[in-house]
């Protein structure tokens, strides 16, 4: 009885899965170790090797080193390098003195490889893309007589190389200081697309290899104070981004409307940001404490403007309104929380979260040249850049009451207010109520339920606001009232429209025996944009996940897991033209297209994924360790359409897109001697997909878009690695 009583009174303890690696002396008893060997990848790929550096067939060098010395009482050091033979290599060196001083330097390289099965006729150095000298232009891609002969493969690879250094020092019992400096280069080839056009309905587009040459320098300095009752951290962060290229130029492959026409795409501009931040906690009393985190940042960008057009035939009558943007975005945030324990079993939290982004920039008119054409439009077609001032504030209360059987009831109310400038909705207000209940009736079983109800109300939808903000008064005055809009007046942009949100979560944890841990998680969420006619009207998530872990001893651990995720949405639209057909308010037949409900259409989208996996860590004998991991992912995406009567608005359902991935990883380590082990690694990777955006799309399949003609990935990769590990004490 006493045991039962003690068990009932014991505090709640989370049911955790043991994920630590095998507790072998090989991992704990040695000060250093070096691993050297070779790996072999069976084929070129870009899905298996997307991030791990194993994207090319052939042999790679395995080189890892870890060495540390904590034997000195005054100082210590630690050095490590890994993946020396790959583009994902990284390393760091740390030296410190007790807890007084810590200095760190290091490097980190990353690579991202994307679908490189495509081809392009564009060549050239830097950011000027040229076509072969014998290129035959045409009005559509099928007219490009030299296309086939001009295509060549290119790598879509981006490398990030970062150098970093940091220092942390204890100034006194209460004060510490730390500082970090990093320099990163991101280089390689990405891709984009650009179009030559005067009229949006007749663009001549091409996929373009895009050189990337970014440099980012970041520095921060922090001062930390703590006396147990008041802990505070003040920090200054500076980030400077520099892009070596400011424009991507490409030769127009189409039959030129204009002599020697070329396109010019503005690339990411240089920018920098300086931020000050203060974070802290003040313990007012054992039953009361206050947390705060405030920041103010200024991001600046003043890169010289490019010309309106790179087209040598372009005629500029109205110059740019200024030489550079001279823009600033000022972002302020404040998060604060007051925690109280008025009763032994009751906690109360009052919280506030605020964020403001002030877009502090000059507003000017731009008579921009459409798609690198030849002439500026008439003055009435001037467009204006607009400010997007944004402020959000959330405040609320949360109460937590602890009850018998390690149970806890939690109720939270939050009110969120968002104000936006120059958008269709000026203000949204949302009430959110969350109720959660957690119980651990026995030490080996936990249940948690959480329900959320949110109701967001949007102020009047100003469907004409964007028109007034972007365009010139001459054009506005010349446009009939019923056509003064860009997006259809029935549209509600979902991120600022009325919404009822319901969400439920269920988490179960069970330890049926000492060695087993079972988990089940369920999440269901329903977003109903209940006042929306056109736009996203409905979104629904359903997610089930389970895992079972078995840890009978320090020598073996195994886990199996699986999950199913589903996301459904319903999007409504209305197909319409401009001119007289753009009158969205006529109610008597014959209805213009914009007010004709028979021209409505609906897309029901569904994304599903199934994930299954298992892993095993097994210390077979004193001299042999085995590890194995298998994962399987299967996804399916569907888009089905519904139409409402108009003969020319009857879209067909799109075919399902399926992706399929198997990945098996195994390794065995044989500890031949005290100081020497032999390790074998094996990986099998299988991936395939049938995305209709790529399926059967050759470079010239689309009349007005010259693509890369990339294929869907279909990979079967084997990787074998053999290495020796030498250790020392």
């Amino acid at each position: 009885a006493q045991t039962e009583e003690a068990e009932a009174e014991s505090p709640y303890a989370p049911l955790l899965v043991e994920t630590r690696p095998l507790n072998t002396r090989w991992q704990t008893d040695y000060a250093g170790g070096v691993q050297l060997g070779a790996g072999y990848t069976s084929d070129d790929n870009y899905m298996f090797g997307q991030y791990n550096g194993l994207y090319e067939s052939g042999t790679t060098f395995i080189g890892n080193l870890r060495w540390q010395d904590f034997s000195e009482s005054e100082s210590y050091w630690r050095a490590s390098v890994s993946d020396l033979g790959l583009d994902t290599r990284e390393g760091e060196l740390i030296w410190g003195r007790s807890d007084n001083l810590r200095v760190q330097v290091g490097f980190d390289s990353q690579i991202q490889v994307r679908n490189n099965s495509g081809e392009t006729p564009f060549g050239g150095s830097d950011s000027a893309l040229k076509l072969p000298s014998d290129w035959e232009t045409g009005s559509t891609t099928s007219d490009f007589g030299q296309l086939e002969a001009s295509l060549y493969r290119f790598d879509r690879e981006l490398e990030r190389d970062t150098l970093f250094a940091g220092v942390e020092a204890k100034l006194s019992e209460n004060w510490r200081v730390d500082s970090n400096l990093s320099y990163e280069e991101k280089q390689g080839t990405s891709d984009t697309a650009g179009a030559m056009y005067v009229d949006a309905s007749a663009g001549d587009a091409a996929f373009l290899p895009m050189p990337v040459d970014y440099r980012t320098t970041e520095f921060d300095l922090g001062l930390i104070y703590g006396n147990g009752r008041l802990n505070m951290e003040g920090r200054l962060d500076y980030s400077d981004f520099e892009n070596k290229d400011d424009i991507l130029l490409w030769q127009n492959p189409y039959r030129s409307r204009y002599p020697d026409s070329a396109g010019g795409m503005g690339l990411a501009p240089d920018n920098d940001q300086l931020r000050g931040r203060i974070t802290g906690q003040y313990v007012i009393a054992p039953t009361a404490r206050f947390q705060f985190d405030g920041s103010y940042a200024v991001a600046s960008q003043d890169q010289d403007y490019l010309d309106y057009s790179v087209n040598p035939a372009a005629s500029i009558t109205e110059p740019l309104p200024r030489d550079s943007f001279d823009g600033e975005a000022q972002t302020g945030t404040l998060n604060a929380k007051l925690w109280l324990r008025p009763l032994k079993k009751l906690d109360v939290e009052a919280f506030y979260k605020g964020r403001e982004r002030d877009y502090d920039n000059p507003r000017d008119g731009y008579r921009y040249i459409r798609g690198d054409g030849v002439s500026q439009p008439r003055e009435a077609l001037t467009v204006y850049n607009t400010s997007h001032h944004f402020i959000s504030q959330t405040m609320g209360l949360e109460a937590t009451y602890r009850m018998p059987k390690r149970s806890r009831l939690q109720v939270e109310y939050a009110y969120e207010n968002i104000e936006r400038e120059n958008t269709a909705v000026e203000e949204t207000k949302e009430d959110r109520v969350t109720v959660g209940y957690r119980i651990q009736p026995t030490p080996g079983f936990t249940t948690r339920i959480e329900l959320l109800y949110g109701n967001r109300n949007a102020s009047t939808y100003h469907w004409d606001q964007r028109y007034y903000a972007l365009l010139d008064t001459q054009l506005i005055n010349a446009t009939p009232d019923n056509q003064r809009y860009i997006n259809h007046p029935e549209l509600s942009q979902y991120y600022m429209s009325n919404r009822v949100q319901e969400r439920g979560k269920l988490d179960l944890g069970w330890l049926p025996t000492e060695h087993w841990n079972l988990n089940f998680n369920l999440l269901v969420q329903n977003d109903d944009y209940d006042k929306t006619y056109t736009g996203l009207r409905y979104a629904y998530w359903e997610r089930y996940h389970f895992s079972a872990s078995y840890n009978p001893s320090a020598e073996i651990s195994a886990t199996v897991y699986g999950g199913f995720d589903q996301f459904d949405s319903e999007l409504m639209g209305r197909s319409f033209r401009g001119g007289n057909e753009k009158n969205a308010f006529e109610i008597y037949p014959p209805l213009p297209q914009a007010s004709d409900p028979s021209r409505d259409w609906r897309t029901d989208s569904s994304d599903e994924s199934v994930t299954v996996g298992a892993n095993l860590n097994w210390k077979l004998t004193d001299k042999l360790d085995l590890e194995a991991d298998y994962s399987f992912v299967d996804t399916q995406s569907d888009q089905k359409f519904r139409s409402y009567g108009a003969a020319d608005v009857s879209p067909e359902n799109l075919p399902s897109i399926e992706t399929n991935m198997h990945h098996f990883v195994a390794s065995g380590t044989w500890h031949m001697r005290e100081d020497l082990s032999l390790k074998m690694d094996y990986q099998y990777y299988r991936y395939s997909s049938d995305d209709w955006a790529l399926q059967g799309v050759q470079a010239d399949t689309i009349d007005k878009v010259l693509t890369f003609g990339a294929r869907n990935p279909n990979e079967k990769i084997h990787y074998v690695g053999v290495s020796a590990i030498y250790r020392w004490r």
Partner: protein
Amino acid sequence: NALGADEPGCLDCHTADSDSPVHAVFSSAHGNLNGGGAATCTACHGTSEAHDRRGRRNPPDVSFGPKWLSDSAEQNASCLNCHEKTGGKMLWLGSEHEQENLVCADCHNSHAQRDPSMDKVLAGEQCVSCHTRQRAEMRLPSRHPIAEGKTACTDCHNPHGSATDADLHQVTLNDNCYSCHQEKRGPMLWEHEPVTEDCSTCHRPHGSVNDRLLTARGPALCQGCHSAAFHPSVPYGGEGLPSGSSNQNLIGKNCMNCHSQVHGSNHPSGARLTR
């Protein structure tokens, strides 16, 4: 000096060859606490006089299991004595993990030469053993390199508590994204306002079935907010595939065949995000 004569008697019983292999601590970052030797033990476990006298019957003052478990606040206080002021941990009290009664030792192994939770790959495995939805997402076709250990959960999230939603390191979600994607920070002449407001309007950070971590496929994703006259308002179905009309607004990069500057443009002719 692990067996110094004038020290507590921890190491008299906890020998290097005993069942509980605690001696690895002397080769770790914690091996020289209080000058090393048995004083290292008492630095975290307390002076533990009762345990020193009758070790099999009395627990140490602060015990982290498996045989004896001190109260979670006591366990954490032992670690926070030194670590609370080392940055990023001052909001532990009241954090999500603290409210779940997690203790430092649930994730950290202070005796190991190299704490598994300081290793990106092993730490990630620890995180997803509870955060199972994220384990599934990070294996989807489009994802961050979390499984490869090149992006750690802790690059974005602070497991020791933060005042930002989802325990993010940075003050907003967008700032978290800009810490690696500075080229999208702007400000730009022509901004795409949902981009500056919330990256998650269009992207799922942990993984997605759609390319580029998108929440949905284009052109439907774009048409959720864009319904202008002519081509933006038209539905694009199977008739636009290569077996049909090979529609330029559906296949390839769909809307981004022309409007490729979706994160904003600084080109004077970039009002339509095509330059």
